[in-house]
């Protein structure tokens, strides 16, 4: 990491030294469990802090320190941070517009606030907003800077998050508006905090901080309307969800299972098969546990944004994998399923900026959970079936490339499995689209409105229907099944990701996002090249034969 100003560098080093020298004690856990109100819901301070560092710094951790600790210092000693390079700016166009060093990724708040060009680009952003135009990636990046600086200022002024429930209404009181007795408690707490995290911090100091945090929490819990016990329980579970990180352990387990399964394919020892089964099953249990936690915390099915579907779809893939493995007696299915699950869950860990893991409240129209549940769950689970077919297709193409004759048995079973997957997918997708129509009719009075999201789901359905019909005429056989299942998945990617992130139009705007377009395009293009390559090689062989 490069620091621009010597002063900033020194202060930054001191603060980092301070924080990392602290042995994390129970006081930290107390701080993390503190309930706060932010962005329309009650969450633990831990989550608030993770979202804050995600926005400002681009990570859910701050180097090796807990976000809660760092964000707390943003609140109580903002002056120490004002010249530290903590504000992430990634968009090169924005850096150019602000005359910032291109190779640098982090900038200090002072540096940005005194930048003479900043008011100009904020003004342009405002113009776009007034014209209600869609923001392009450049302006999304400008908007992020606005949010980053805004958050740091609001924190410094004590205007967020809400710390205590009010006597009336639903807006919690922020530090600035706390009653004197709570404010006093907070000041004492902040002093103890600064004393405890320093070099001079002693065990007694930390114990004192812990007591004061407990005391503050008790006072806040009893303030105004009070905080209900079940909300406190939920808050603790959310800290657990953050800390335990079930999806991380889940993909680790899937990956192990996958390795065992591959070993079994090569070597064929029974224990390898069993090991594969056990790890994939453990991965599935952890996956299920993580989703159950998320459903409990959000109070709704986990399919309201891209992150949640990228977690939910591989769950469906593994489920279909287990079922088809039983029916088809083929390890290929389970291997494909485990590979997809590992891939998707790693993706959710790698790209929090594109796949936002935060729990957000829903748009009004989505609050009729029953229809939301049925139509979105069914459509996304159909994607799972197509995803599995896609991975099987990839594997099969590999066999075709190696030796078509030698692996004839695997190819036959694989093609059968793909056919099954496509059938399941088509039935579910058709049902899901129709239920979506019913929901739209029920909410908007329009059964079918050619909205891009529904239209692309229909296009994907038509694509797979064409494949299934072409199979009847003999246009598509084993090789064709492999090719079409790989290519057909591009339609699903368009319906799933492309409509929200590339087209960005229509009524399903609540799922819109940005980022990752180059990677997704790359993924699709690579597969098209792969299919072309295998087809060419195979065609050449046939000609020679």
């Amino acid at each position, binding site marked *: 990491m490069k620091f621009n100003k010597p002063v900033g560098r020194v202060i930054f080093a001191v603060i980092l030294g301070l924080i990392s020298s602290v042995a994390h004690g129970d006081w930290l856990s107390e701080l993390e469990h503190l309930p706060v109100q932010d962005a329309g819901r009650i969450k633990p301070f831990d989550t608030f802090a993770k979202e804050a560092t995600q926005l400002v710094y681009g990570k859910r951790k701050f180097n090796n320190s807990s976000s809660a600790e760092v964000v707390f210092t943003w609140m109580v000693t903002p002056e120490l941070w004002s010249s530290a390079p903590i504000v992430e700016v990634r968009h090169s166009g924005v850096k150019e517009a602000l005359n910032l060093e291109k190779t640098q990724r982090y900038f200090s708040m002072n540096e940005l606030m005194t930048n003479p060009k900043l008011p100009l680009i904020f003004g342009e952003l405002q113009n776009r907003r007034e014209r209600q135009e869609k923001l392009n990636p450049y302006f999304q990046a400008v908007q992020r800077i606005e949010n980053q600086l805004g958050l740091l200022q609001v924190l410094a002024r004590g205007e967020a998050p809400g710390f205590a429930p009010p006597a009336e209404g639903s807006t919690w009181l922020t530090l600035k508006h706390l009653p004197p007795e709570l404010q006093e408690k907070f000041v004492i707490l902040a002093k103890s905090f600064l004393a405890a995290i320093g070099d001079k911090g002693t065990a007694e100091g930390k114990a004192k901080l812990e007591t004061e945090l407990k005391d503050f929490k008790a006072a806040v819990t009893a303030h105004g309307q009070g905080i209900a016990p079940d909300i406190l329980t939920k808050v603790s579970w959310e800290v657990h969800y953050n800390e335990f990180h079930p999806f991380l352990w889940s993909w680790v387990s899937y990956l192990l299972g996958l390795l065992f399964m591959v070993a079994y394919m090569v070597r064929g020892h029974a224990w390898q098969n069993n090991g594969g089964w056990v790890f994939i099953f453990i991965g599935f249990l952890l996956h299920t546990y993580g989703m159950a936690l998320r459903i409990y915390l959000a109070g709704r099915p986990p399919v309201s944004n891209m992150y949640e579907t990228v977690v939910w779809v591989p769950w469906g893939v593994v489920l279909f994998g287990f079922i088809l493995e039983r029916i088809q007696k083929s390890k290929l299915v389970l291997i494909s399923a485990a590979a997809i699950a590992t891939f998707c869950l790693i993706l959710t860990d790698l790209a929090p900026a594109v796949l936002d893991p935060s729990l957000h409240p829903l748009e009004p129209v989505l609050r009729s959970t029953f229809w939301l549940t049925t139509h979105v769950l069914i459509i996304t689970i159909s994607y799972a079936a197509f995803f599995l077919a896609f991975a099987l297709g990839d594997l099969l193409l590999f066999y075709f490339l190696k030796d078509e004759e030698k692996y004839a048995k695997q190819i036959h079973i694989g093609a059968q499995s793909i056919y099954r997957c496509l059938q399941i997918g088509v039935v579910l997708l058709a049902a899901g689209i129709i239920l979506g129509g019913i929901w739209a009719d029920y909410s908007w*009075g329009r059964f079918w409105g050619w909205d891009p999201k529904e239209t692309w789901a229909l296009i994907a359905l038509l694509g797979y229907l064409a494949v299934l019909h072409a199979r009847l005429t003999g246009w598509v056989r084993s090789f064709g099944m492999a090719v079409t299942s790989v290519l057909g998945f591009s339609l699903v990617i368009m319906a799933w990701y492309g409509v929200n992130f590339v087209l960005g139009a229509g009524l399903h705007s609540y799922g819109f996002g940005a980022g990752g377009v180059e990677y997704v395009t790359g993924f699709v293009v690579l597969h098209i090249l792969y299919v072309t390559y295998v087809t060419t090689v195979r065609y050449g062989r046939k000609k020679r034969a």
Partner: protein
Amino acid sequence: MKHISKKLFSVLTSIKLAVIVILALAVLSAIGTIYEARYDAEYAQKLIYQSPYMYGVMIVLSLTLIAVMVDRWPWKKRHAAFVLAHIGIIITLIGAVFTQKMGVDGSMAFRIGETKNRVTIKDRDLAVYGSFGDGEVRPLLQKQVEFVTHPPTEKDPYVLPFGSEKIEFVEYQHLAFREEKIIASDREADGPAVRFQLTNPNVNMTEWIRRESGKSSEVVNLGPASVVLSDGSYQPQEGVNEVILVPVPKTDEIRYMVYDKSNLLKTRGKVKESQEFDVGWMGLKLKVLRYHPKSYKQVTYQKAEGSSPLAHSALRFRFRGQEYWIGIGSLIRLYTEDSMYVLAYVFRQIDVGFPLILKDFQIGHYQGTKRAASYQSLVETPDGKEVVISMNEPLKYGGFTFYQSSFEQDEMGKPKVSVLSVNHDPGRWLKYFGSFLIVLGSILLFYFKKALARPRKT
């Protein structure tokens, strides 16, 4: 002849044709979504989804579906899945045609307390009204227009004749931003306009103020002060700092008077174009940048590059050699020596046959935020009942269904207008029934694996 029909039948029953039709549908739909992202839903619908190509593909699809089923006659038990799914598709398509041809899909916007019985639908009308010196305005003609598929151009204008006059439409923009310009004129009926700049070390504001000749004064409120363009009859208000500008007739001078909050005259004098004077508070100076004793407002439209809720469609037309722009939902006055015409370019409104009254509108927020969590309208139906319409809880009345669709707020964030979407869909149950058959059929496919395999005729 028999030979040809036999051949045609065998083409229609071939699964190869089915594959081609399915792919054609997919490709057309995909193009449609690109149009929608680039422009808007209406544009995509008119140019793709309701285009002759789409209808053509749909007709071939229906013929194939029917032919294939006829071909399999007499049906066996194992044909159940495919027959059900295919009949389902045909019924759903018939339902869609009913909706398209006989349905109503529009919207109704109310202020709180307002009574409405008219629904605005997507069809567009051009209407002309005329007034011939007797003070009465009479409708002359009303015509439905479709410019998305047939946009007028300079070479191929759309001509609207009425009486001895005609209007020539020469350009259509589907999405455009409205822009206003103030232009000097010499017509007696036009009012004055002033472009002024208010400056001090912290403030720099430039504004136009224009008064219609029929109005005695026009006020522009700039926060700490108001600027008034008056014919001299304006009385200063208490509680506001005011600069009153009164053009002196037949000269290029403007008289000015500055009053403070307690209505004390601070300063007065005369000013010309490109001169300035001290206002007397906050170190502000007012400079007259432009002064037109007679002026009119010219509205033009600029093509929008992307879609935006503020962009809407607009037409450029010529009337008696003069060019004008008119935006959807607006009207424009056109003068000749002895008569006045009004041209209106509007969405068609239809009467639902009964009035609805919006009694109240409420927004629920997520805790501690301004994000709407829910919103609902309280309406009174003609039978005197009060009904709540909320998201996902529509009102069914008189053959129409009213859905809570959106709302508009004023600057203070208070709800101002509630928008209901209004719908009458005679094809609904056909579509539901067809959909049900499709799902049933595709589930049955799992039971009858070989249902689609045609028994080879020997």
